[in-house]
C-alpha cells in the first residue's frame, strides 16, 4: 500500500492521538507535584519518536520496559503500571 493511501487511512487518527498526548502533558505540567517514573519514562519515549529510522514502536516499548534479567524475589503486586519503576 502506498504512502498516500496509508496517510488517508490513518492521518486523522494519528493527529488526534498526538494532540491528546500533548494535552495530557500540558495537564500534567499545570498540576502540582513532580514527575514520577511513569512521566519520566513517557518523556524519554517521546525522544525516540522524534528520531529518524525504523522500529519506533519497538524502541518506545523498550523504554517503557523493565530492562533487568533476573526474576524478582516476590511478585508483591499483581498489576503493571506501564513503565519501569526503576527508571
Amino acid at each position: 500500500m502506498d504512502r498516500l493511501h496509508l496517510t488517508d487511512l490513518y492521518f486523522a487518527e494519528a493527529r488526534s492521538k498526538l494532540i491528546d498526548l500533548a494535552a495530557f502533558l500540558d495537564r500534567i505540567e499545570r498540576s502540582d507535584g513532580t514527575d514520577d517514573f511513569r512521566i519520566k519514562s513517557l518523556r524519554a519515549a517521546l525522544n525516540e519518536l522524534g528520531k529518524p529510522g525504523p522500529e519506533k514502536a519497538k524502541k518506545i516499548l523498550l523504554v517503557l520496559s523493565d530492562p533487568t534479567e533476573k526474576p524478582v524475589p516476590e511478585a508483591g503486586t499483581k498489576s503493571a503500571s506501564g513503565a519501569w519503576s526503576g527508571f
Partner: protein
Amino acid sequence: MRYIEPHAHMISRVTDDYAAMVTAGCRAVCEPAFWAGFDRSSAQGFYDYFCQLTDYEPRRAAQFGLPHYSWLCLNPKEAENLSLANDVLAMIPAFLDRPNVLGIGEIGLNKNSRNEVAVFEKQVDLAVRYDQMILVHTPHLEDKWKGTRLIVDVLKNNRGIDPARVIIDHVEEHTVDVVLDAGFWAGITLYPQSKCTPARAIDMVEVYGAQRIWLNCACDWGQSDPLAVPKTALEMKRRGHSEEAVDRLVYENPIQFLSQNPKFQLDEIGWEDKCRAAQK
C-alpha cells in the same frame, strides 16, 4: 467472513457475546484457564472452575452451534502460593482426557517472580509428561519484555518441548521476533488500551509475515471486545489485504496450530453427547 477465536475467557462474558461472535463468523472458540479477578481460596475452587471450562461452558456455546475448547492450568497470578500450586497441578491430569481440553494454558509469568518461574517450569514439565500442547501468557506492559525472554529460556531448556506445539501469546513489537525466531507460534492480542490495536497487529503481520501467527481478543471481565478479531479482519481489507490473506490469518492459521491436537474439530455434531459421556 469466517474466523476462529483462539483465546477468549467466555465464563466472564454474557450469552449475547456468543450470539454476536457466531453472527460475525466465529467457527470455534478456545478458552484458556485464567485468574478470576480474585485469588481462589483453595484447590477446590480450581476444581469447580475446571468443571465449568470442560462441561458447562461447552454446553452454553453449543446453544449457538459453536464448538468450545479449553486449556487448563494454574495461572501465573496465583503462582506465589507454592503449596496451592502443587495441589492444583496434581488435579489437572484427571481433566486432560475430557473431550474439549486442548492442552496446558495459559501458563507463564505475570510479575516475573521466582515462584512464578518455578511454577511455570513445573507446568511445562507436566505438559511434556502428558504430551500436551502449551499456550503461554506473557506479562503485561513493563514486565513483558523481561518475562518473554525468561519464558523462552525455560522452554528452550526443556528437551521435551517441540516449539511447533507451543504458542506464546500477547506478543508486541518488542517481543514478536524473540518468539518467532525461537520457532514458537506467536499470538497477538487485540485490546482497546493495553496490548495491541488492529492497526499495529496488521503492521506486525506485514513486517514478519503471517506464518505461525494468530490473532485473538482475549476478552474477559476487563475492557475487551469479543469481536476484536473480525474487526481486525475488516481493517486488513481496508489496508488492501486480499480475502485469502485475511482467511489464512484468522481461520487457517489457528486451525493449523490447534489441529495438532486431534480433539480439535470444527464438526460440532454430537458435541453435547461427548460432554455428557465425559461426566460418567
